């Protein structure tokens, strides 16, 4: 193990965390403010990726693809909220889980009919497709660096939106005390629709960003949904700041586990045993983290203030 490898793996963890954050931001807002468990958030991630792939194919440019797909996912999100989920706010969580699980099945089948089971690969422009040397002798994929930059920019924009604007104030107020915000005359219905659409766009953006790496596929949302839930539970439900920090922690722990656990275990057990134990343990690492956080701080690391 060398320092350059450690640096590279930290960047990898950071990059994974950024994608998780984009996913978790929408999820935590919807869960925290609307008290709605939306399993279909992963479907919006998938729809974002597939729409972006299609638009990229039409226009021949990944950037245009993203710019066209973003509003499209926003519209899909708002449609989902208005048509299906709006009626479920007052129901208990089990009903919401069932209904949004139904939406997952619906979207997966829809994707299979429209895009086929083979999915889509997104070609990147040449300047993004290679790698650059971040330090002498340490090349790093340009696209992954770009993901980190874009993700940080989105996080900063979100921070500004939530902390400095009136909409953000309403969002924060909603996360702290929904009923009171309604009682003060805020149109809660409209606020919810907006938040949901906004969360959908963020999930879609996460999908678009991930697609050139993992390809756009049916069911891609399910594999990221669970870590995203881990992130919002660790970070504190309803808290954007918590989601950001927890996403980075989860991304780093997952990547570091995959990178160094076999070496680490190898220092005190046989190479063979370490080889078998390391993949199993690194797959569990983020869930162990969640269990520990839930035990010591059941409300999460950074819960929204004023939640009582």
């Amino acid at each position, binding site marked *: 193990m*060398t320092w*350059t*490898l450690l640096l*590279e*793996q930290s960047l*990898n*963890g950071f*990059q*994974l965390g950024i994608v998780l954050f984009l996913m978790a931001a929408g999820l935590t807002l919807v869960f925290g403010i609307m008290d709605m468990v939306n399993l279909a958030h992963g479907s919006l991630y998938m729809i974002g990726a597939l729409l972006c792939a299609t638009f990229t*194919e039409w226009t021949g440019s990944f950037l245009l693809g993203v710019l066209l797909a973003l509003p499209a996912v926003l519209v899909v999100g708002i449609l989902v909220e208005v048509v299906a989920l709006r009626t479920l706010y007052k129901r208990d969580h089990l009903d919401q889980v069932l209904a949004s699980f139904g939406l997952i099945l619906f979207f*997966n089948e829809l994707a*299979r009919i429209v895009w*086929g*089971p*083979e*999915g*889509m*690969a*997104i*070609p*990147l422009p040449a300047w993004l*497709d*290679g*790698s650059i040397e971040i330090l002498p002798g340490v*090349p790093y*994929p*340009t*696209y*992954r660096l770009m993901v980190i930059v874009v993700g940080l920019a989105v996080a900063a924009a979100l921070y500004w939106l939530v902390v400095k604007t009136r909409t953000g104030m309403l969002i924060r107020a909603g996360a702290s005390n929904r009923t009171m915000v309604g009682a003060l005359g805020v149109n809660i219905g409209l606020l919810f629709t907006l938040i949901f659409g906004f969360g959908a766009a963020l999930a879609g953006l996460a999908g678009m960003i*991930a697609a*050139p*790496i*993992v*390809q756009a*596929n*049916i*069911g*891609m949302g399910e*594999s990221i949904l669970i870590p995203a839930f881990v992130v919002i539970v660790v970070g504190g439900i309803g808290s954007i700041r918590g989601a950001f920090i927890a996403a980075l922690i989860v991304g780093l722990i997952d*990547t570091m586990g*995959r*990178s160094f656990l*076999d070496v680490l275990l190898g220092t005190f057990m046989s190479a063979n045993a370490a*080889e078998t134990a390391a*993949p*199993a343990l690194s*797959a569990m690492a983020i869930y162990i983290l969640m269990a520990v956080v839930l035990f010591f701080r059941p409300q999460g690391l950074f819960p929204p203030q004023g939640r009582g």
Partner: protein
Amino acid sequence: MTIGKLSAGFVAALALASLPAQAASVKIGFVTTLTTPAGVIGRDMQDAFNLALEDIGGKMGGLDVEVFYEDDGFKPEIGKQKTDKLVQKDDVDFVAGYIWSHVLLASQKSVLGAGKFLISANAGPSQLAGKQCHENFFATSWQNDQTPMAMGEVLNKRGVKSLYVIAPNYAAGKNMVAGVERSFKGKIVGKDLTKWPGQLDFSAELAKARASKADGVFVFYPGKAGGAFMKQYQQAGLNGKIPLYSVFTVDSLSLPLFQKGKLEGVMGSYMTQFWAPDLDTPQNKKFVDGFRKKYNRYPSFYAAQTYDSMFLIKSAVDAVKGDLTNKDGMRAAMAKADFPSVRGSFKFGNNHFPIQDFYLREVVADADGNWTTATRDVVYKDHQDPYAKDCKM
């Protein structure tokens, strides 16, 4: 509902249930993955099976053939449920298919315990080749270790001294790693087993592979994970730095996607396989031409094995002239491997896995510019898997 109505319904149900008892058809259950992104593999197999059914005129041994397709959802527990349903409810005579080793291992008992024939059209777990081999189990594919063993030989020949191995952490992944370790004479400098099927981002593994300064990277990623891996290999700037040697990762299902995604790095890369679309056997020409004509794409090796499995079943039913109660006769007929195979003539070993040739293939563009693979060399002649000696049959 009154007792009278109930019993009337019961009698009617009995009458219905007893109807299919006089078998006028051969019933074949086919378990594969039709949903999830791996559904693209299942579709290729289903298409090949349907094509084979057409090519035999829908008949074998004078009987009509009925096929029941079931989707395993890429999950062992669902695969087992569907297998149980085929065996118990549909009362099929043969169960074929199975992409995934872990699904096959979970399902095999349901078929073999009921005294039916089980034909694997892809998965070749070491367990079923060795100690758990069974007289009613046949594979029209390969044992998992064989293809990576062939790759190990190729690596030796090319003077590769150190190798970094990356594979998914499940039954077949472990067999693939064991296979290449068995024949590769150099040093394995690093090995990663990744979460399966969830993990599609290989940033950490690729960074380790680069840091290891190995002469080559060996991978096994079937289905969509393969596409993701190849893409990330290129993005990490590893193409041209460390040669990539793959098994079951680049195939006719992923190549059109690579071509669309402009993944030039995959051109010229090498893999080993028991079959290739350009193999010059009469049955293979018929199969590849028929498949391309009907579905307008190249068949994958999954499709080739599946096509063979239909002809294997036909050879059994033909041999007993449609007498499906004659299990011994059908078993003996299948063990002879006396059917036109896409790979040319081959034999079954004592464990009912093929003893067959393995080829080195390279990714090239065909005359129309479509990306495909071309055969470059014969790596193994009549190769038998290493587990056959553990099989007491």
